[in-house]
């Protein structure tokens, strides 16, 4: 089976800042992979490179066997992406936006797919509200929905739970666990360690663009450490 993600010697330089420094990484399919790191460690840059939104300065990246550098559009066709900051277009309603994404992705039965997500995240009553008038949390729900409308085998999620209320966080975490149990892969970036400890199967720690650690969450647990102390120790030793 091909790896979900394969990164070889990947570096990204912005002017005099090396955001990601010679990172190599492999994520097998069926994992809930957590990319951890402090603010500004290069997590978002890494996700943007993995999804073809940014070209690496050097290195190679393959996602589900697709060369991301050569085929960025194909990459974004087969994966789902929840970006950290982007918000849906201001003047479309929630329903129109999901319908727009269904059209872009050329999906069959768009109404059915949209309805599933409106109900799953309990925002049917806001489907006719303009995206700009939605609360941050509802906008975040919409961004999650757009990423999973086409049921991708691999989804990239950049800090997805920050704006969600505890009830929806639970629904979303259960969805992710179920999704991975079906053989799909989630690449999850966060600095909220409790969430990573709760749902991730594998983790990697990135700091100042350097990859400090990769391994399973069980390895951390077996070392009788909480992820928080493990993480702090790693980053401070750096």
């Amino acid at each position, binding site marked *: 089976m091909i790896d979900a993600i394969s990164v070889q010697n990947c570096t990204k330089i912005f002017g005099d800042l090396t955001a990601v420094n010679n990172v190599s990484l492999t994520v097998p399919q069926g994992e809930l992979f957590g990319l951890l790191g402090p603010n500004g460690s290069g997590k978002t840059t890494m996700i943007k490179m993995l*999804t073809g*939104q*940014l*070209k690496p300065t050097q290195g190679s990246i393959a996602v589900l066997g697709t060369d991301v550098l050569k085929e960025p*559009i*194909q990459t*974004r*066709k087969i994966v789902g*992406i*929840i*970006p950290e*900051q*982007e*918000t*849906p*277009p*201001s*003047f*479309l*309603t929630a*329903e*129109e936006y999901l*319908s*727009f*994404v269904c*059209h*872009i*992705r050329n999906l069959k039965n768009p109404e059915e797919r949209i309805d599933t997500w409106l109900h799953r995240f309990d925002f049917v009553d806001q489907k*006719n*509200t*303009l995206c*700009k*008038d939605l609360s941050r949390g509802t906008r975040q729900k919409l961004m999650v929905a*757009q*990423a999973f409308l086409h049921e991708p085998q691999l989804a990239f999620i950049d800090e997805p739970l920050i704006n969600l209320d505890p009830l929806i966080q639970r629904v979303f975490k259960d969805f992710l666990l179920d999704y991975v149990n079906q053989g799909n892969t989630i690449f999850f970036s966060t600095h909220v360690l409790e969430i990573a400890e709760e749902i991730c199967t594998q983790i990697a720690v990135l700091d100042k663009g350097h990859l400090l650690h990769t391994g399973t969450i069980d390895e951390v647990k077996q070392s009788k450490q909480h992820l928080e102390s493990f993480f702090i120790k790693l980053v401070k030793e750096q």
Partner: protein
Amino acid sequence: MFRKLLLAMIKEEWRMHTKTAKNQTFAYFPLLIGIGTFVFSLFIPYLLSILTTEQLFRYVHFIFVFFGVSVGAFGLFGKEIMNRRFGQISLLAYSSRALPVSEQKVFLAFFVKDIIYYLFLWIIPIFSGFLLASPFIGFSIGTSFIACGSLILSFLLGLSLVFFLSTVYAHSSILLLLLLVGSGVIVAVSTLVYSITLEFFLFPYSLYYSFSWIVLALLLAIITVSSLISVVFVNVEYSSKKKHYRNLLTPWSQRFGFSHYAFYMAKDFIDLKRSEGGLGKVIFSFLLPVFFTYLFLSVFIELIPGIESVMIFAIFLGIVSATIYNMLTEFDSFNPYLFLPVKVSTILRSKINSFLIINIFSVVVLAIAALTMDQIYYFIPALLLFISIAVFMLSVTVYLTGLHPAFLMYDSKVFIPYAGILCPVLFVATLGAIIYPLSMLASPLLLPFAWILFKKSFTKWDQWTPVSI
């Protein structure tokens, strides 16, 4: 506090532009404008062989009012356009709720900053170029200085009036309508009953030719009062009373079913319909400049025998219509598409399609102009000229600026080729339209070049790595 706020906003503006126009090339923009004006000014003696000095100065005063009108229209767009243009950037102008300063004070600083910014970016460089050229073209420096003064007043008049009108519109579209109708009636009665010429209302020009303290005081009062009213009653939040909207995307995309980009086009039109300013956007950024141009041509150019004003109107209409592309891109940055399987060229193509649809309206405007100017027999060459100019200008804009025309145009690396390509084309078209209007039947020769530029644009911008602005 006000001084600090103003300085911070000026720094903010500078950093936004220098970040977008890489390598500080934005800083060279005023220099280019100065050099361009100097070179253009050297040709003034040739212009004076077909125009009188008075006509030329009327024309230039008109252009400066028009420029002020374009700049002032910003007041209408408010916060949303800034969000679309700059992504998630927070600007001081929209931070009044987080700062211990009133919204009025923040906006006054923003207004003053905008005036300073346009003075340094455009007005002072233009004047410098003109003043430097004055000794070579037989204009006395003193006269040129006075002209510069009245031109600044023209700019401020246009800016403050449209800012005032857009503030009125933000509170009540009916009040704006009443105000416009009322002004129209006053102007009509003045000209028809009291035989006051229209140029009288171009106060700075009247001032330039026959100085009067009363006119100066009246002019300064209009500028100050309308600016103050705008600042006091500023409304940057166009609160939408409507909370629920029916789905327009599907029915509108069916209307555009003839195009591959039906959904994207439907989104463009929804953006225009639902975004802040609503119909006002069309009035202030399209109809108003077009109306000013029409008025100008009707009143001034018709005085010059042998010039078919509808042909010149077609060129102006082409130039103004080309800016509709800016409006289409203002409300739709590429950011929401970055994480979807969409090429930049797809969005460019859809915008070009939307542009062509909107310009059906421009064709109607041209037909009305040809009828009312009593030059319907020149409609076909004028139409071909309009289409050729609008599409060619669009192709150059798309090629050079992609989806960011409003910002990248200030990068001198972009502006030099833009002006270098368009100025000769517009010059030849204007000359042809004046000397032998029927020669403009050949203007569609520009379209194959536009086609090539579009093709090249798609390849170019698909290679582009988006930068967060």
